């Protein structure tokens, strides 16, 4: 029987060590081993974006990353987006803007939107739509998602 592999990584700012099989994805490790179930599995082949996490500062679909690749990396999941007890402006704007219905795509979209607003403080509608094209939402038609990301950008600029 081949051996499991020990992985040392940093998740949401905390040092984390876990034991995994090489065939397990980062998504599986986060959900089933580490217990962070915020990232969701919608397709397991990189097309829905529900498992989006930040991987060394870039968004990836964690179903297409092996857990063993997390060695030495910095990972941010939806559980690490809020600032302590205070919601991130994107989270707050999603609530006020009714940008979620069933909510299953929401963690991936908020993580992706955060990565966008971290690098572009005032993205156009077109830029938001392009950036989020790998995040499928079947409930909202995207309208309120795009508007809420725009609203969050505005609120974050005001706060600066």
């Amino acid at each position: 029987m081949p051996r499991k592999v020990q992985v040392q990584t940093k998740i949401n700012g905390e040092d984390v060590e876990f034991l995994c099989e090489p065939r397990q994805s980062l998504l599986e490790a986060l959900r089933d081993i580490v217990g962070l179930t915020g990232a969701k599995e919608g397709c397991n082949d990189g097309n829905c974006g529900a498992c989006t996490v930040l991987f060394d500062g870039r968004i990836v679909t964690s179903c297409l990353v092996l857990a063993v690749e997390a060695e030495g990396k910095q990972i941010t999941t939806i559980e690490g987006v809020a600032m302590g007890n205070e919601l991130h402006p994107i989270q707050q704007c999603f609530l006020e803007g009714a940008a979620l219905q069933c909510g299953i795509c929401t963690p991936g979209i908020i993580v992706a939107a955060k990565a966008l607003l971290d690098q572009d403080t005032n993205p156009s509608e077109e830029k938001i739509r392009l950036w989020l094209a790998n995040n499928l939402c079947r409930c909202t038609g995207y309208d309120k998602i795009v508007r809420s990301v725009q609203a969050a950008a505005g609120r974050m600029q005001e706060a600066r």
Partner: protein
Amino acid sequence: MSTQNYEPNMVLSTTEFDVIGTRPVRHDGADKVTGRALYGADIELAGLIHGAILRSPHAHARIKSIDTSKAEAHPAVKAVVTSADLPDAGDEIIDLGEGATPLKYLRGNVLASGKVLYKGHAIAAVAANSLHDAQEALKLIKIEYEVLPPTLTAPDAMRDGAPILHEGLKTTELGKPTDKVSNVASHFQHVKGDIAAGFAEADLVIEREFNTATVHQGYIEPHNTTVLWNNDGRVQVWCSSQGAFAIRDTTAAILEVPVSQVKVTPMEIGGGFGGKIPVYLEPVAAVLSKKSGHPVKIVMSRADEFEATGPTPGSCIRVKIGVKNDGKMVAAQAWMAYEAGAYPGAMIVPGSMCVFAAYDIENIVIDGFDVVVNKPSTAAYRAPGATNAAFATESIVDEIAEKLGIDPLDLRLRNAATKGTRRADGPKYPRIGCVELLEAMKNHPHYNAPLEGPNRGRGVAIGFWFNAGLPSSCSMSVNADGTVMLIEGSPDIGGTRTSIAMQAAEVLGIAAEDVRPTVADTDSVGFTAVTGGSRVTFATGIAAIKAARDLRDQMIQRVARIWDVKSEDVEFEKGVFMSSNGTKNSISFKDLAKQLTSTGGPIVGRAAINPPGVGGSFSGNIADVEVDPETGKVTILRFTAFQDAGKAIHPSYVEGQMQGGSVQGIGWALNEEYFMNPEGKMMNSSLLDYRMPTSLDLPMIDTVIIEVPNPGHPYGVRGVGEANIVPPPAALANAIYHAVGVRMDRLPMNPVAVMEAIWKKEGVPA
């Protein structure tokens, strides 16, 4: 296109309330934006093991033998099951409040016995320590098949000599059983007036055939379940579904245990749209749990979702409409064959009832056919059956308008159904909002905005859906801090906890935030039908209103006792109890809440209902498109959705339903389809190749909420979940016609199809 000098989201409100019509943050919001909300697949239990299902590689085959011995011998495997592990269903018919279904069909779909009827049909299942091990063990199960030819479309399955799916299926012809073995489960008819006389009177008759592909609901969360068959014989289920009681009752029926032995805990659900009403996994996980002694979790893959859950029927529809030169429709005829998939029960009944539902036509004949084919057994999908039908009718209505030189909305207004219009299936309409909808469309800035540039066109279409009532239960208790706990049984797919709580808050004169809704398990709340039929805000809303009134009345009695007055002399308004007999007593809801324990004990309100008074909903679209005449690709430039909500409880979530339904309709119209090879294998069973719209494929979806109150609901609610998906394919087909001059008669209208239509029109040889 969107230089906006208008409101993108309008509410044409007719009545004002304190809480209803406002836009509070949803009660489950914080959990859902932080990743804390627990969906079905998120559950973890001590000793949990994982199940995987072996599925047929063939669309139609006889199972000659199944050998599971090698899988059973695998060291990580804890249990293996086949259909032999389920009780024999016999000929029992069960009624789950959804129409009757023979139990053997439900059971046969859960685990095949004898024959497999579609690629992806479940045959056996394995539970093992890890999902990877379970999947590897499936490869050790050996099955011998006798492969049979498949039949994949309704017209093909109806022909003489077509492969027969069910040797025991005999056609029901106009309500009567016959001895004819065929793939047509039933043929029925709606007749109104004298069709021949109607067409004889017509100045213009247009008849066309339309075909629509099988499409999927496409919710992002796959089906999942976790089941523990406990040592005391109780079966505990945790799953995402549209109705915990529907899952309980179906699972109990298939397992042949009393319903009280099954407890279903509804987890958060990641979209359903009708697809999460049927049971697929629970009985399998249950018998795996019984055999292994462990709780068993099964989660579908995305390919399983496409190949083995219930999509919506593909269809073949012929519609013929006759009109007078002044635009008055005098006769309409429809021939509609819907693909049920592997087992009878296509959404042909509602489809047939919706095909001419928007219009007041004197003479109508509708023939409906429920046809089995070698595709997955179909399920509901948002206004099931109506979208296919409206694509046909609304395309022809547009053609009539063009030929008669009448504005397409004026033509619809000329014929619009209204209160008292007799439908083809018999009953007369109660108060409906078809005329108000059409007038709102006509008056909207979008309809009157110029659309310039080559290859651009504007299309309109409307649609109808009945909505549903069905049972709901609710109980409420008062906390000492003046808040109220509300227990209900409708899984919340799109913010209904809040729309229900808001109605209770309105009755009690307190803030929406002061009502705390909980969706309870089947042991903890009275029977509640599925979240579907756009019924939750209507029916569970009425249950909450009645429970709140019960609470209020009990509090009035308490106040009367405290003040020593008659309860008839206590009035309640905007959260304050007042005596009306001359004395000047008054106390707020919150202050009274503090005193309940010391003045007679806690108060609980309750209601359990099965409400009449369902109000149907009309919806409409104005769509502007541009077609690339060299590639056939359609770009949506502007899209406005209109819908009669009756009353919008939480307008943001009503808009969300309209926008989401519109975009599902757009996907259905332009790109989504089950692309089957001749052997019946779906070739595009991934979210890469089954092309649902991405954010980059769409403009903003503007909305107009029309409010024609439903007299059957205390605040006028109709229900808004479904009618919005009905008009988009027809609206886009009509827009494509006005852009490049081709009438599309097939869904999806993907680039290949549009290009071929353009070539045909231009006479380009193949």
